[in-house]
Structures are given as structure tokens and as C-alpha cells.
């Protein structure tokens, strides 16, 4: 009898351990395989965790697309990056930049609910994520199934976003924060590029303003890139981006501070409405120069 009880105890503890093992596979937070930390072929700079945690979350592939769609500007496939260059992204740096660019394009496609076109971008993103050893966070099969069957397109957006967030967290936790910042730079540049193309076609004043507002977003992104400037690839990217930054010197952004927002409860939802007023001023020449520079840097990056 005593033997049986001991066996049950050992069994319980063993099961408990196994359960911990299986949950670790899906919990990107706590479990970082040593081979991933050690097997990093990207010239990396280790940044303290508290600095990593203070990194500003600069860019989402969804917000720019939502803004464009919200203004009733029609979808245009020609704005998107060509995926035919994916295989030529041979280094981790290029893969990370490509991942950001295609991630932004997926946000645009998902926002306009174009699942058929998404599949091509899914394949590229999956291949680049595998190349960076973060493919385990990208649920390619599920995403492809949803896109192919055109079922529950909302979940296509959610799973895509979550995958990118998991990749971002994992890279930061595995001392590959530099790659995370490069992905963010790719997302930002592609979103910026989309805005420039949309402006050229629509001449919409709000899109013009959005282009000017990138001065603020870029200043935050540059702080992140500067952390890793010892890496030669990132130094080169900073040099390219500085050419845009110089043009932003002629963009004037004015903010009139308002009162602190007061909560308004309506239909069971509490809403805070910011009362600050922000205006952006720039000449047509400055705008033209920014558009030209952004498009030329983006071309160089997409074509590898």
C-alpha cells in the first residue's frame, strides 16, 4: 500500500513538472532557450532590461492604415512592397527590416480586408521570421487557413498583431533588442511610405499633416536606433534616416495645451477626450523633398 502511495506522489510531481514544461513552450516570457541567446549571428549590443522596458512603442502597422481607410481613401495594391525580393534578404538585419515592411503591408491589407492578397505577404513574413529564429511565434498555418477560407477576418488582424508583439517581446528578452528596433524601423518606414503615396494620389490635408507628424515619431525612433548605433548596419540606417530628419527641421509643429480630460460616461463606456490642439506647418517644397527622400530610402530597403 505504501509503495502505491509513494508511486502516486511521484506521479503527481512528475505530471506537475511535465505541465510546467508544456506551458513554457507557449509562454514566451519566461522560457528562452540558451541556444537562441548564444546562437545570435547578428552583431548585437546588450542593453539593460530596464532600458529595454523604457523603449517607446513607436509604430503599429494598423494605425496608419486605419487613418487612411477612415478618410475613405480607396485601397491600392500598387502601394505595397514587392515580395519577390524576400529571398535576397540574406542578413539578419535585412530580414528584420523586411519583416517590418511586410508587417506594415499586412496591416494595410488586413484593414481593407484583402485576405487573398495577404497570403503572399504571410509567406514572406513566415520565411523572414524563420530566418530570425522567431518563426515559432508566427502561426502561419492558422493565418493562412483564415485568409484562404476568408473566415473571421478580424482574427487575421488579431493573430498577426499578436505574433508581431510576441516576436518583439522575445527579441528583447533574448538580448536581440537591436533586431526588434530594426523591425520597428521597417514598420515605421513602410507606414510613412504608404502615407506619401496616398498623399500623392489624394492630396488629402489630413494625410499631409500625418506626414509632418512623423517628425515626432521619428525623433522617438532615432533614440531607439542610437542605442544600437555601434552596429554598422544600424549606423548606416541612421545615416539614411538622418537625411529625412534634416528635412523635418523645416516642419513646424505647434501644440496648444488644453485642460486635463474629464471622463464622460455614455452607454456604459467611459471616454476621455484630449483637449490639446496640434497643428503642423510645412511648405510644399519641404513636403515634396520629404516624400522624395522617403520613397528613395524605402526603394533601397525593399530591393535589398
Amino acid at each position, binding site marked *: 500500500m505504501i509503495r502505491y502511495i509513494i508511486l502516486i506522489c511521484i506521479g503527481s510531481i512528475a505530471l506537475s513538472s511535465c505541465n510546467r514544461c508544456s506551458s513554457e513552450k507557449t509562454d514566451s516570457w519566461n522560457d528562452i532557450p540558451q541556444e537562441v541567446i548564444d546562437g545570435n549571428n547578428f552583431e548585437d549590443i546588450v542593453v539593460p532590461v530596464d532600458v529595454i522596458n523604457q523603449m517607446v512603442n513607436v509604430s503599429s502597422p494598423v494605425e496608419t492604415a486605419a487613418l487612411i481607410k*477612415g478618410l475613405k481613401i480607396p485601397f491600392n495594391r500598387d502601394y505595397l512592397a514587392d515580395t519577390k525580393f524576400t529571398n535576397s534578404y540574406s542578413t539578419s538585419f535585412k530580414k528584420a527590416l523586411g519583416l517590418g515592411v511586410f508587417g506594415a503591408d499586412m496591416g494595410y491589407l488586413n484593414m481593407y480586408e484583402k485576405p487573398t492578397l495577404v497570403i503572399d505577404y504571410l509567406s514572406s513574413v513566415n520565411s523572414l521570421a524563420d530566418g530570425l529564429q522567431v518563426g515559432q511565434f508566427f502561426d502561419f498555418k492558422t493565418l493562412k487557413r483564415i485568409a484562404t477560407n476568408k473566415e473571421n477576418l478580424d482574427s487575421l488582424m488579431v493573430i498577426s498583431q499578436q505574433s508581431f508583439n510576441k516576436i518583439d517581446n522575445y527579441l528583447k528578452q533574448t538580448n536581440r533588442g537591436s533586431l526588434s528596433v530594426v523591425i520597428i524601423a521597417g514598420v515605421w518606414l513602410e507606414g510613412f511610405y504608404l502615407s506619401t503615396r496616398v498623399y500623392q494620389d489624394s492630396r488629402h490635408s489630413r494625410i499631409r499633416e500625418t506626414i509632418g507628424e512623423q517628425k515626432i515619431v521619428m525623433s522617438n525612433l532615432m533614440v531607439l536606433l542610437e542605442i544600437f548605433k555601434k552596429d554598422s548596419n544600424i549606423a548606416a540606417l541612421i545615416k539614411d534616416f538622418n537625411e529625412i530628419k534634416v528635412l523635418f527641421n523645416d516642419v513646424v509643429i505647434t501644440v496648444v495645451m488644453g485642460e486635463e480630460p474629464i471622463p464622460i460616461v455614455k452607454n456604459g463606456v467611459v471616454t476621455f477626450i484630449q483637449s*490639446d490642439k496640434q497643428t503642423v506647418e510645412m511648405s510644399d517644397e519641404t513636403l515634396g523633398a520629404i516624400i522624395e527622400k522617403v520613397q528613395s530610402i524605402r526603394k533601397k530597403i525593399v530591393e535589398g
Partner: protein
Amino acid sequence: MKNIALFFLLTAGIFGYSTVAYSQSEDELVEICGMIAGEATFLKDFKIRLDSGDPPPIQRFSVILKKGIKYRFSVCNSKDQDGKVVLQLLDNNRLLATTHIVATGKDWPFIDYVCTKTGAYHLFFSFKDGKSGLAVGLLSLVEAEGGS
């Protein structure tokens, strides 16, 4: 005596197993939080894990919010810990929004924020009364200017 010791060992083994089996993971909390956010489009999750303390410890994140976007911030607590999370949105030193309305004493599972200025904002997460806790915060997009 030996049997009593074995009984405790057996109980501890089974209890330990069941605790692990039913504890909530951060990913589960993200899913629950997503349901709280409703129709809003998921943008980013923030995982909060704090020890108890006085004054209450704060976990801080920074985000860029964009003019013309209505955002939704939702929060949810792990059932395994006592702490009830409070989110505060700040711009430099100004409190712009919070899930805990002091005037009414009410905690909201989500709040909406209409942004009129593109820039860096700070999210401060803490647990009420300085308790330890595990929680998730979610940033979602409700609509863009013009009504997306």
C-alpha cells in the same frame, strides 16, 4: 505516524500539480482582455507583474499615440493573485486618463481615449493598496478620424 506523513506528501503532490495546471498564463489573460476590449482592433499588450510594496510599485511603458485615433485601454487581473490593477495614462506629468475614477471610486475594465496630439505617452500600471499582482493591459484601436 508514517502513514500521516505519507498522506501529507500525497496531498502536497496533488495540490502542487493542480496549482500549476490551473494557474492563468499571461497569454490567457491577453485573450480575456481582448474579449473585454470587444470590437476594438488589438494593437499591443502589456504584461504586468509586481511585488507588494508601500508606496505601490509601478510598472511603466511608453507608447506613441496618434492624433485622430480613438484608443481603448483594457485591463484584466490574474485570478491567482490579490492585486487589482490600475492604469494611468500620462503625458509628461499630466494625468490624462485612468481606469480608476477617484470621484466615483469606480474601476473600469476598459476606457476610451480620443487622442488629439501625436506624441509619446506613458502608461503607469500599479496594484491597488500596493498588493502584489499579475495583470495584462491591452491597447486597441476603436476608430480613426472620419470613422474607420
